[in-house]
């Protein structure tokens, strides 16, 4: 896996520093990570970079050295406008957007806000809708026992093991744990306590051809939500992934990559 170029941007009247990891060659693609930060998704990002120039920004507050950046944005509206500024700074014109979970909601919301600014879009187990009969689990307050089977189809599998792996001691251990927790805090700011910021009212504005991927064993947000997203986004296509939970791109990377690649036309 080639080392990505790390570009550190100063945005939002200089109040937010954001690292963007840039890798690969090809048409531009922005990857927006989920609630646990960019770190667990790097292998997936590297696969995307085989056919695209991938821009993977870190959510505000999760860039090393600037945890306070999370306080520079107050509202969901701020966050969406912030991403507009980020894309402008990167001089991206209608890139493809790929997002996971919380990041997928950000992608979808941006695509609804600025329909002409997004090329194609892939949403992997997005949050953002709510059904009373299928409550979405709050991933920030799960016990260790409940968390693994909620996130992974195979709680003891290799993907789960790697996701939860923490260095056994020292500063590296503290740093890994702190990043893992703080990333949830920073994303949780915009979706606590229920990840419904009214996206359903705006979903109809999305113009980008959209692929919705869902792990069939997602224990955070049930696969039935795939259809809830699809029926609100014109022309959206749904693919359910076998033997995958909330993180299908980690648990079934090849299947996910193949589907994404076919959709993006790479």
């Amino acid at each position, binding site marked *: 896996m080639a080392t990505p170029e790390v570009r550190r941007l100063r945005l939002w009247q200089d109040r937010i520093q954001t690292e963007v990891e840039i890798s690969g060659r090809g048409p531009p693609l922005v990857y927006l990570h989920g609630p646990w930060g960019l770190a667990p998704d790097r292998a997936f990002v590297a696969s995307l970079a085989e056919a695209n120039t991938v821009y993977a920004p870190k959510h505000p507050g999760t860039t090393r050295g600037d945890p306070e950046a999370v306080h520079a944005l*107050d509202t969901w509206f701020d966050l969406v406008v912030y991403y507009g500024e980020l894309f402008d700074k990167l001089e991206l014109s209608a890139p493809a957007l790929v997002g996971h979970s919380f990041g997928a909601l950000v992608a979808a919301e941006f695509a609804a806000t600025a329909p002409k600014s997004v090329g194609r879009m892939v949403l992997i187990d997005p949050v953002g809708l709510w059904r009373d009969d299928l409550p979405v689990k709050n991933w920030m307050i799960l016990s260790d026992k409940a968390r693994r089977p909620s996130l992974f189809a195979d709680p003891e599998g290799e993907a789960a093991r790697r996701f939860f792996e923490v260095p056994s001691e020292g500063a590296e251990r503290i740093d890994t744990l702190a990043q893992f927790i703080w990333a949830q805090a920073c994303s949780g700011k915009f979706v606590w306590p229920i990840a419904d910021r009214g996206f359903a009212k705006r979903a109809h504005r999305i113009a980008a051809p959209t692929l919705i991927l869902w792990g069939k064993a997602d224990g955070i947000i049930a696969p039935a939500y795939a259809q809830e997203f699809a029926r609100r986004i014109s022309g959206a296509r749904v693919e359910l992934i076998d033997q995958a939970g909330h993180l299908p791109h980690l648990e079934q990377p090849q299947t996910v990559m193949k589907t994404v690649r076919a959709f993006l036309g790479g």
Partner: protein
Amino acid sequence: MFHLMPYRDLPADFDQRYSSAYIDPVWFDVADPDKVGQYYNATLDEMLFAAKAGLHGLCTNQHHQNVYGFMANPSIMGAVLAKETNGQNVAIIQLGSTLPSTTPPTRIAEEYAMLDCISGGRLVAGFPTGLPTDATISNGVIPVEQRERYREALALVTKAWSAKEIFAWNGRHYQLGMVNLWPRPIQQPHPPIWIPGSGISSTAEYVVGQDHCFCHLSYYGAKNAEQVGDRYWELVARKGRDDNPYRFSFLQLIGVAETDAEAEDLYAAHAEYFFHKLLYTPQYYQAIPGCLEYGALVQALQNNPRAGINLRELKAKDFFARGFVVVGSPKTVREQLMDGIKRLRMGHLLALLHFGSMPTELCKRNIDLFAREVLPHLAPQWDDRYEDRWWPERLRTKRPAAMAAAS
């Protein structure tokens, strides 16, 4: 006298059925509303008994969705106490309403002002940030915003209490076009402000910076709070504040009886009930991402003195031996408390004289013995050298007289 107002009669298998005292226990599976009515009344009775017995203050607090203590609105309790203690030299210590959970926070400014008026200027205004579960789960506060909301709310409340003119508040979290509070507190510009914290972090920095009283609400006893105490006083010195002990309050579970053996026997079951059933909150509810600011999070990961203690594995004798609960004859309790008072430079001792499943008769006996045999020996510790600037002014001069009467 500090009171949590817990559920006193949980099913024996409660700790097997639930892995948390907070959030998870389902009301209709566990609780009996008639009993709960009796608990509220018993709690008020016990606190009023404490006031008559000569304790200096009555301390209520706010918690939600749990069995551990559910004065969901402490102002309701405080109102009864303020009214019933009219004419007594006892402070009404609200420790208190949680600002970030209440919108707009001027509601709390009003309630506290009412309490100060009803009590004739005897209010101590406590402002906890609120436990993570209380604020973020029960009241939907965004974890990473809890502290900034708190600070803004406190600034708004203190301004609303004393502003001579109508003002507009255009804050980040609160916007009010015309603030002109009715009523205002008798104590101007504000009643004494006490702020609880569980360790020395940004909250303690803030408290010392503002010259308020810091309350270390630990349930692990003075013996286990030495590091926090030392760091607190270092912080006080670093910020250029004086070493007045009254700027530090500490909570302690206390059980007094005629002899050590009797005390251990009387309070064992209630101590185990408290630590096994009531206090039990799993890590995933205590450490909700965002409730600690980044620096405090890193600090907590580096050094969490209580990580690794499984309360349910300890027995009453361990809670006593480790000083979580100070139990014994009046002499034993006096000595142990005095050690803690001196070691931590404790100006206010928040005596938790009811804990766990303790029935009201035992609680009153505990209060009575504490008031007669223990308190008179502790109370004068700092009085000849320091003024308690964090106590209602109208009670300051009267306190020694009240203590003399009690002794």
